[in-house]
């Protein structure tokens, strides 16, 4: 029976002989929004690169919808922290490349109008003809989200996409991402790497915490807050604070253990 979603079994990864990730076992059902947390150097971004197919695993298997992941694919879109767009192409041309890949039979004008539709969806219609260097960090990340949406990938991998943004822009883009994710039918599966516990809990259905040296899953917690979340209400709620404390303590305990081991 084909398993819908992402499945990681006994995944290991090492740079030369240095182990980075060990024994990663995960099942992420389709349509789930997962926050991936962990201390710096725990291998969160490496795990995301493995899922994206940008790097081969040293051992173990990764499967998406039952098929083994052997390299990058349009099935798996990625949004990086910055520099996602090619600086020599205008914003609309950047998105049009993705549209062309998702629908190779489309005409040039069709791709452009489809790209503009995606830009409107992320509130970037004013920047259609601009170049990435003319945009603010927040606008560039909106462009990156638009490109990922244009690719039409059912699995979206996000590597600290809002990490370089100021708090106001970060909150706006979090809300935009939730709005886009909640309105899509069927919902995309999202793996969202972040350092920010609040962000992971506000966005996710579930948080996975990676421990360091080598990276391994040390906690896998459900985030059961009802959807269509109200940011202020949620962040002030006792259940949110309790979960936040638990996650913070888990990460702090792992960091302390690493310090003692060192």
């Amino acid at each position, binding site marked *: 029976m084909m398993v819908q979603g992402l499945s990681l079994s006994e995944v290991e990864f090492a740079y030369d002989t240095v182990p980075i990730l060990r024994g990663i076992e995960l099942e992420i059902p389709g349509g789930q929004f997962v926050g991936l947390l962990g201390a710096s150097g725990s291998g969160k971004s490496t795990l995301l690169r493995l899922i994206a197919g*940008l790097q081969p695993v040293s051992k173990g298997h990764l499967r998406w919808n039952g098929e083994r992941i052997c390299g*990058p694919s349009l099935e798996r879109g*990625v949004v990086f922290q910055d520099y996602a767009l*090619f600086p*020599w192409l205008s914003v609309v041309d950047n998105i049009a490349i993705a549209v062309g*890949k998702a629908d190779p039979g489309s005409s040039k004008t069709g791709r452009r109008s489809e790209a503009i539709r995606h830009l409107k969806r992320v509130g970037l219609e004013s920047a259609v003809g601009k170049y990435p260097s003319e945009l603010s960090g927040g606008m560039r990340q909106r462009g990156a989200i638009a490109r990922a949406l244009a690719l039409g990938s059912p699995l979206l991998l996000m590597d600290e996409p809002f990490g370089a943004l100021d708090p106001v822009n970060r909150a706006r883009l979090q809300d935009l991402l939730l709005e886009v994710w909640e309105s899509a039918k069927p919902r995309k599966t999202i793996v969202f790497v972040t350092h920010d516990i609040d962000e992971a809990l506000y966005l996710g259905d579930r948080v996975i915490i990676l421990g360091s040296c080598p990276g391994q899953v040390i906690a896998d917690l459900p985030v059961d807050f009802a959807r269509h979340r109200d940011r202020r209400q949620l962040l002030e709620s006792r259940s949110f604070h309790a979960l936040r404390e638990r996650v913070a303590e888990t990460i702090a305990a792992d960091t302390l253990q690493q310090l003692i081991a060192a």
Partner: protein
Amino acid sequence: MTPTASVTREVQVTPVPPDPSNAQGFVPWPVPFRFARGPASAGTTLPRQPQRLLRRLLRLLEGCSVFAALLVAWFIAAEYLPLGDNPLIPAPPLVLRALIDSLPELWAGTLSSFSILVPGFALATTAGIVSGLAVGSSRHLANAFLPVAKVAAPVPPTVYIPYAIAILPTFKLSAIFVVFIGAFWPVFQNAVAGAHALEQRYRDNAAILGLSGFEYRWRVVFPAALPHIFAGMAVGLGFSFILLTVAELFGANAGLGRFVQYYADFADYPRMVAGILYTGLVTWLAMSGLDFLRRRALFWHQ
């Protein structure tokens, strides 16, 4: 990029007399004003545009200063130094007259030289970019071709001139070949370096978008390598001019190098110096044209 404010700001200009005894020993010469932003209290106000004009004028003066000094030194050397009536250093007015008189001949020489330079340089640029990007973005091609390039590239292209003249049917073809060889290697090497230097984030983005083969090279590797390619083209163009003029010394019957050699043979030094100055001007114009292209193409590169 922050958009420039469209509001014209005004600056206050306070005349400041030169004061060599101030703390930094700074004398605001040759612009006898010091600009200060703020509300007008005394003195006249200058809008932003004239301020920019003054700055440009100052830059122009600085840029011309060494030229002017060289011209004066030349004039003194030709007119007043006790070198006797030395024909090897013709006075500037003499050279200027020779230049004006020779303009039709120099123009014909320019056309002749460019009929060699343009095809040679264009072929070298095209071949250098295509092969450089192919070799730079494929490990197998790099393993096969880079050892050859390492041996062949350092050979001074001038040594090919006698052989090229011997094996190719016309002088023009030989000269085009030599210009091609001279310009090809810098473009090739820089294109390889540009493709090698492709940042990981661009590789990742291309892989995510499923770009591969020719599409990957055309849409990602080529634009990302353009800063390197233009650096190689600038070196290649400089080499092209050197090789062109050297080749013309060998066997041309027209062209800029030939003009200088011809009048040197007749000891007509005013025309010879005029030819050197004219060639310098043409070279500078060609390099400026390439630089203009570079700035247009690399508007995105900071």
